[in-house]
């Protein structure tokens, strides 16, 4: 007797793991988003080139919109920088003692670059 061991997504997300847990969740979300983006890109190219279909143009319109660009740049940039942090810590386990500092550095690198990219995207969008 007793409950099953299943941990629901809600239970997992409710766990208070602080900064590192947040980066872990964002890494997963951004990874899946990149896969989705690449799949859409291939699909759009295939539909446009092979069938001259308007569906390809429709998909292109979605991911060329400035809102989608802001999202996908977040995903690509965050995934890359967080991935680099993990690779560095995996290769030099002694540095893991400074994991909190590593996460602060990661955000310090990420935020200015991302902020600059968002600024350029919005400026271009507003300029039409």
């Amino acid at each position, binding site marked *: 007797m*007793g*409950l099953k*061991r299943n941990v629901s997504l809600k239970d*997992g997300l409710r766990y208070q*793991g602080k900064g*590192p847990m947040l980066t872990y969740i964002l890494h997963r979300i951004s990874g899946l988003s990149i896969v989705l983006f690449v799949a859409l890109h291939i699909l759009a190219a295939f539909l446009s080139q092979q069938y001259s279909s308007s569906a390809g143009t429709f998909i292109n319109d979605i991911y060329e919109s400035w809102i989608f660009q802001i999202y996908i740049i977040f995903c690509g940039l965050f995934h890359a920088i967080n991935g680099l942090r993990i690779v560095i810590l995996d*290769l030099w*386990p002694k540095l*893991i003692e400074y994991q909190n500092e590593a996460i602060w550095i990661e955000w310090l690198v990420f935020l200015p670059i991302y902020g600059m990219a968002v600024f350029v995207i919005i400026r271009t969008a507003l300029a039409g």
Partner: protein
Amino acid sequence: MQVTIKVFRYNPEKDKKPHYETYQLEADPTDRVLDLLEKVKGYKDGTLSFRRSCAHGVCGSDAMRINGSNKLACKALVHDFGAKITVEPILGLRVIKDLIVDMEPFFDNFRKVLPYFINDDPAPEKERYQSQEDRERFDDTTKCILCAACTTSCPSFWASDEYLGPSAIVNAHRFIFDSRDQGAAQRLKIMNEIMGVSRCHTVFNCTLACPREIQITKAIGEVKKALMTGSLE
């Protein structure tokens, strides 16, 4: 101070689903969450079930989720949480009753890593000599009390209890890096299996949850590096 404690309740003989019950208690800020649970059990509702033994952070019986993260109830002080405290069982293990979980999958994983000294050489007349530096190499991982706070904070373990989990890897680390032990190759082979160290995604929940402040992710990283380089240096 007045404290409201919300406790996860599940009695398999009566309840179809788990639910929460809330109790109002008078407590000192320096009381431990375990004291609150004892008060609930002693004065409010004797059916509340939870594990506790030494109550001093050594036996590792009372790991639970307190306000969303794993802690030992006997080391968690009320003033660290405020007037509202939620207590739930640790995740990823089957709930038997209230805050009691089935620890068997956790200990199965512990046994898989051969957590004992392996050395077939004849025992010397006195002790097996070890320098202070060699002892220091695995000192941190000798502190594990098998409370499961780390393993049940790990998203990879939530996904599958076949994953060895941080605690089992910490205990493997304790022997892999012991200069007197001869079972490192056997244990590294186990660590290299599909449900071994490669399932660790450096989430760091384990390190934050450990009541003994063991650098768990670092220990797992050292095992990963030993597998990559084939060297224990």
